């Protein structure tokens, strides 16, 4: 049987000019069509996104209004998924099972959903009735205000004309009448209007500099801009770390610190050595002060996965172990919060700010005035050679310690390559291959650290009289080792794929061809 045509909600929004002219149009509209009042209401719409605007980056907006949480598409306006929801959404995983949760998960990952801005709408409803006193058209007049962080801005008045199913003529007549009065159909979404009015940029925490990099830029200017972007990311994450809303705040903070430190270490002589070394040391201290918290975050994030490695009832015996981990994490979180309130921390951040905002803080060095592409290209070539040498030396049964050194080299290479990818997009393929290799190496490192952590927690519990977790912890450790060995065996294959991707890439990687063995 032929399917019925879909019956989407047919509505059209018009922006009404403010002031006397707009009021005149609305009075004429009401008089011409003998519209009757159909009630008043107030609607509060709250938009959410991750702090780094992951939804917005993929043309999505998540709105909570009138007990419904809706994911909308901004490109071709339509609702992707919707669910009845009370309260405030926190993580995609915490939402009720269904289409919305499945649509959000891949977009937000384990990022917290944070309020972005709200729109308060005072709605006056009007309706048009026919001779039978039957409603054939609905109109809503919206007087709206967007608000975020204590700031609010009025939006243009809107008239929303909504067709009642089966009554096309009335809808057409009113829309045509409004067009004749010079009232423009609304081009932007309400979400877009709100962002514009409040001058918000949901993707504000990008790790890339605000000014696009170019190959001919001086290395000092370009690297300073990149360091500045990392500084902004670090600062943007501070509040999230203090409030402990989402482990990803700390992660991004650490990545920003690590990137900045890596650039200073890799691109020596772009800046004066002494202030660059001082800043690097200061960043190193910042990173170290959060190591323990990040380790515990990652350990606890793997809780479900590790419990799944064991069968019942052993899996259940791990609960006290992870609870112990959670308590340890809470204590470390307090320590980190205290560190972030300290004068030393303030000084470190101030030093970073001075270095990236004032040239005197970090004066250009020997290669500071050289073109960015040449400086970074040469460094990438050298770092690539190191990675290749270490990679080719990976034996079939690679040792996790040896792989750890390769992982650090890969990380540094990736950060540099990401700068290069800004200059020549064809390098992006290398970045993604490198990321795959790096992910595998990261997993091996996590398993190694977590193996030690499990043993340490089990011993602490045992000493405190909670010995029941000990047998389960021993089994978990053996499973972790087996898992790590499997991961180690995969590394060589991933390395081969990565080295092949170098062959297929234009300069500067072609410079490395002499080192690319025919694997």
């Amino acid at each position: 049987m032929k399917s019925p045509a879909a019956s989407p909600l047919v509505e059209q929004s018009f922006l009404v000019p403010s002031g006397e002219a707009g009021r005149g149009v609305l009075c004429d509209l009401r008089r011409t069509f003998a519209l009757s009042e159909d009630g008043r209401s107030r609607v509060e719409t709250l938009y959410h996104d991750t702090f780094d605007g992951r939804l917005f980056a993929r043309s999505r907006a998540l709105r909570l209004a009138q007990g419904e949480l809706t994911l909308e598409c901004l490109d071709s306006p339509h609702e992707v998924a919707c669910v009845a929801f009370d309260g405030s959404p926190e993580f995609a995983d915490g939402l009720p099972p269904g289409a919305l949760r499945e649509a959000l998960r891949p977009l937000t990952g384990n990022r917290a959903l944070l309020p972005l801005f709200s729109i308060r709408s005072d709605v006056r409803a009007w309706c048009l009735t026919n001779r039978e006193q039957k409603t054939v058209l609905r109109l809503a007049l919206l007087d709206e205000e967007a608000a975020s962080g204590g700031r609010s801005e009025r939006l243009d008045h809107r008239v929303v004309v909504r067709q009642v199913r089966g009554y096309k003529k009335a809808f057409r007549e009113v829309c045509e009448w409004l067009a004749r009065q010079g009232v423009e159909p609304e081009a932007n979404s309400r979400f877009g209007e709100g962002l514009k009015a409040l001058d918000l940029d949901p993707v504000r925490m990008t790790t890339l500099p605000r000014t696009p990099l170019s190959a001919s830029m001086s290395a000092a200017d370009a690297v300073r801009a990149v360091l500045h972007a990392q500084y902004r990311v670090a600062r943007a994450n501070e509040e999230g770390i203090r409030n402990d809303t989402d482990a990803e705040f700390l992660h991004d903070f650490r990545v920003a610190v690590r990137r900045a430190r890596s650039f200073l270490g890799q691109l020596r002589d772009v800046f004066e050595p002494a202030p660059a070394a001082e800043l690097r040391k200061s960043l190193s201290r910042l990173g170290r002060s959060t190591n323990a918290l990040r380790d515990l975050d990652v350990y606890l994030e793997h809780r479900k996965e590790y419990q799944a490695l064991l069968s019942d009832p052993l899996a259940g015996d791990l609960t006290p172990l992870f609870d112990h981990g959670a308590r340890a994490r809470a204590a470390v979180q307090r320590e980190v919060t205290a560190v972030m309130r300290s004068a030393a921390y303030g000084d470190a951040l101030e030093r970073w700010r001075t270095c990236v905002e004032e040239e005197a803080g970090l004066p250009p060095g020997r290669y500071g005035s050289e073109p960015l592409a040449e400086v970074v290209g040469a460094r990438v070539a050298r770092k690539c050679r190191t990675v290749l040498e270490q990679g080719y030396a990976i034996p079939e049964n690679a040792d996790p310690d040896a792989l750890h050194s390769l992982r650090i080299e890969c990380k540094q290479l990736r950060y540099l390559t990401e700068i290069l990818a800004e200059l020549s997009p064809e390098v992006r393929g290398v970045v993604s291959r490198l990321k795959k290799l790096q992910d595998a190496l990261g997993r091996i490192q996590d398993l190694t650290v977590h193996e030690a952590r499990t043993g340490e927690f089990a011993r602490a519990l045992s000493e405190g009289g909670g010995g029941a977790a000990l047998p389960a912890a021993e089994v978990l450790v053996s499973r972790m080792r087996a898992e790590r060995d499997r991961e180690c065996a995969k590394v060589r294959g991933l390395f081969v794929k990565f080295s092949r991707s170098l062959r297929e890439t234009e300069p500067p990687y072609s410079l490395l061809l002499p080192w690319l063995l025919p694997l």
Partner: protein
Amino acid sequence: MAGESRRGRVLALYHLKGGVGKTTAAVNLAYLSAASGLKTLICDLDPQSSTTYFFRVKPALKHARRVLLKGGASVADNIKGTDYEGLDLLPADWSLRHLPSLLGRVKRSKRRLREILDPFRGEYDLIVLDSPATATLLAECIFVAADMLLVPVVPSTLAARAYANLRLFLRRKGYDEAKVWGFFSMVEARKKMHQATMQAMREQFPQWLPATIPYTVDVESMGLARAPLPVRSPRAVATRRFRELWEQVAGRMDGRDPETDPWVRSFPVREVLE
């Protein structure tokens, strides 16, 4: 009942006897369904077009023959929005008097209505059928299409007899009796005969919803107001009873356990009709 992957249910108001309150119940239940947030379609299958009249819609079907035989887009084109959010109407007109004979000419005729409605289950949470008083092929189409067959019964001798005939017919034809639920309509509590008839019928037949709809002026005046009772008389006794009835219907359609659900009174099926 509402779900993200929508698969609407079909609720039919049916009785082979006329004047028992089918249309009144269909209109009020459809309204209450929509008011509870369910996207609802009410289909007026009665050529008298009373439901269509209640919703102030012109009784006219475009390409009626195609609607009745082919369904699909021709049905969608005829659906009208009502004055109430989330409630649409498939109107009736006089041409529906040909429906039983038209159905007789198509293959798998008893499944026809179900097949016509099936595509709309994706769009609506609930489809309410207001059927005419009939015992023709159309009635069997309704039995097949409905997930729940709701039978309003006036507690009078003739209505009780008609109800007994209906149950006997359903059993003989092998229809799923579990989806048949009765409720008492147009009840005059002061009449001893009504009380006695209700008690006797409850003992004789299974599956009664506990809500009883009273015979009141408010219900009678729905035709004048041309609006559902909860809109016209939100505090009336009859409105309260229709709300109770809706809760019980929604509970049954949600598949709540009759043993634990206080709303639903389930009776063991007795072999009373053999």
